């Protein structure tokens, strides 16, 4: 049924919207990986852009050097980033708060530029990542962007399904227990460092998938695609979505994708210079972040739930 829905959508909307749809799906995955880490297991990461870069590079190298089928390259991206995440998680489990934020921030700044040091990574201009044309049996009118959208949307749906199941399992409960009160959780017999490393590993794996999908939509993997700004916009997206619940991920993802377009329209309305146009999206995003933190700190979805709960309580009384 989902496939049919995707098929209908892909045919109805024009190509730019299809491309934006693919970008939204990529952001949904990236944001959900951060929500899992921060909202559920209570660890901060400012370096998810770097993890995405690891996923993107491993997928591209697997595809270019070893001619591995496209589907498998995404699994490889998940695997390699998860391994990197496990290593990072082992360090992260000993750190908390600002120290962990600092460590991941350093990673976000340092890691992508490492690519400049190694020839096979293609330096600043990066290496191509081509998932190929859509299968011919899908017909002539099935465009490249529709293909991207299908792959990314499907990956997003699978990811969300998997995540929501994991979060409702023992592991999810362990993470939430640890986030609420670490000591209490340990007394209950939860191995906190193992639990934290597991969260980091899983979150990294998902971020790696998002990275591979992102580079699929731009055709190349290069350090400049995984800037600090990307890490921050994912974090912003997570806060806008409501950091403590997966339900709102769409909100953050949609905002991240359409905000530049809105900014563009606004900038053209007021007829401003290029300098304003290119800085307006960042400004709007920042303003939106402040407003969110001030008025709906847990995100719109949680806010809605809290209100609904209040109303229900009132009715009862």
């Amino acid at each position, binding site marked *: 049924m989902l496939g049919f829905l995707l098929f209908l959508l892909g045919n109805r909307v024009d190509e730019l919207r299809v491309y934006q*749809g693919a970008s939204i799906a990529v952001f949904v995955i990236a944001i959900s990986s951060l929500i899992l880490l921060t909202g559920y297991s209570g660890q901060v990461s400012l370096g998810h852009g770097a993890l995405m870069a690891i996923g993107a590079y491993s997928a591209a190298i697997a595809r270019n050097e070893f001619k591995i089928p496209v589907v498998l390259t995404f699994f490889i991206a998940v695997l390699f980033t998860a391994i990197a995440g496990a290593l990072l998680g082992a360090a992260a489990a000993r750190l908390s708060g600002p120290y962990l934020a600092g460590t991941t921030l350093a990673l976000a700044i340092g890691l992508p*530029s490492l690519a400049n040091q190694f020839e096979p990574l293609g330096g600043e201009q990066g290496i191509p990542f081509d998932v190929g044309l859509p299968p011919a049996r899908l017909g002539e009118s099935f465009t490249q962007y529709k293909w991207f959208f299908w792959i990314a949307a499907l990956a997003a749906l699978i990811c969300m399904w998997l995540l929501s199941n994991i979060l409702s399992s023992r592991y999810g409960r362990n993470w939430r227990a640890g986030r609420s009160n670490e000591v209490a959780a340990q007394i209950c017999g939860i191995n906190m460092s193992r639990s934290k490393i597991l969260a980091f590993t899983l979150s990294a794996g998902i971020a790696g998938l998002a990275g591979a999908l992102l580079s699929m939509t731009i055709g*190349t993997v290069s350090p400049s695609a995984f800037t600090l700004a990307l890490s921050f916009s994912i974090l912003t997206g997570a806060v806008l979505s409501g950091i403590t619940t*997966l339900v709102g991920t769409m909100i953050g993802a949609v905002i991240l994708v359409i905000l530049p377009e809105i900014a563009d329209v606004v900038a053209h309305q007021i007829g401003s210079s290029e300098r304003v*146009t290119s800085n307006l999206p960042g400004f709007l995003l920042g303003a939106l972040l402040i407003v969110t933190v001030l008025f709906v700190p847990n995100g719109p979805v949680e806010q809605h739930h809290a209100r609904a709960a209040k109303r229900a309580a009132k009715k009862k009384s």
Partner: protein
Amino acid sequence: MKEINRQILVSVSAVLAVFGLVAQALPAQAAEVGVSSSEIKLGMTVPMTGAASLGYNKIPGAAKAYFDYLNENGGVYGRKIRLIVEDDKYVPTEAVAKTNKLILKDKVMALFAPLGTANNRAVASAVNPAKRGVPVLFLNTGFSGFADLKKYPTHYMVLPSYVMEAKVMGEYIKANFADKKIGLLYQDDDFGVDALAGFKTAGINFAVKVPYASGSQGAAAAAGWITKFKAAEADVVILFAVSSATSAMLGVAAQLKYAPQWMLGSVGGDAVTIKATGVPAGVLYNAIGFSPVPATTDMKDEYVKLFSDIYAKAVPGSAFDLNVLLGMNSAFMTAQALKAAGPNPTRKSLMAAIDSKGATFANAALVPAGYSKTSHVGLTGYWVGKFSPTGDLSPIGGTYVTYTTDSGAGAVVKSTYVRPAMPAKGLPN
């Protein structure tokens, strides 16, 4: 938790559905995308902000200045040219997103002068203008790979390739600095790969080669480069780099009183741009420079004169430099291509016009262009000049001696090209 599960699916499907509603029916197909009865839309991506924007952010203003002048004088067959400019910050992801917007949302007829080797490659593979049949006119990059018709059938180069420039430089070095130690600063991407290939063909051996990553071209890096050139005792240092790297290098060299014989590639060798960053003009004195178009200070040249007059009126207070001249020249060539495409231009007829007549288009360059049905190579050579004490480039010996070559193993030869006279008022005829 079942609840959350359901909510996630509902929210995902809801947004996807809204996404479906946003869909607009495609507008009825006009004669050609981006061409209406009153207007032709062109789109351009260029770094307007960010580290690499230095100098190049003047190109859109320059092109617009010419198009506005053209529009005031009747446009092309009555249609006005509208150039939509998008800032890509010299970042490939941005270039892809902005090009998507230009092609899919703004529905431009053609892309005009998009800048940067890495950006153009990313756009070519992700957006794929070739598959969409969108012409990419007069690229602002000299990477020789874009002349590959099989890979880039709708791309048209205009700048001479970096290979050609390195070959012309190589010939000059062999004739004048044969016994000197040569140092080279180059960008570690295709821009540099092209340069190295050209120097290799010319048979130049370097005492030291210093690569830099685009994005790391500040003053701090420049101090490090100078240490390497000093250690190798380079007599001649070639700066085959973008404006920001060239300016950083010359600025730091001035502070450190490091003064080898400089040789500046055309990409970053525009004196006005360099001086605008605070580099003292004296540093440039006697440096060797290369250019395919006349010196920007040469007001006896009819093209330079007219373009600088138009620019001064359109953008008062902005200095007329090499980026401006090249930007206006590309706009002028685009106008001729659109005119040659006939009263009802299509993407196909536009490209056919350049294939058949592009090599004869009037333009400021002093070297021939290589357009034909089997070649989308742009200009094919350079003249060699020296910078004056005030930092202006002028031809050695007072007259322009131009050299032409190809991006392969062909020899560097003196060009006999005679430039077409400027059409009346600088309008396509």
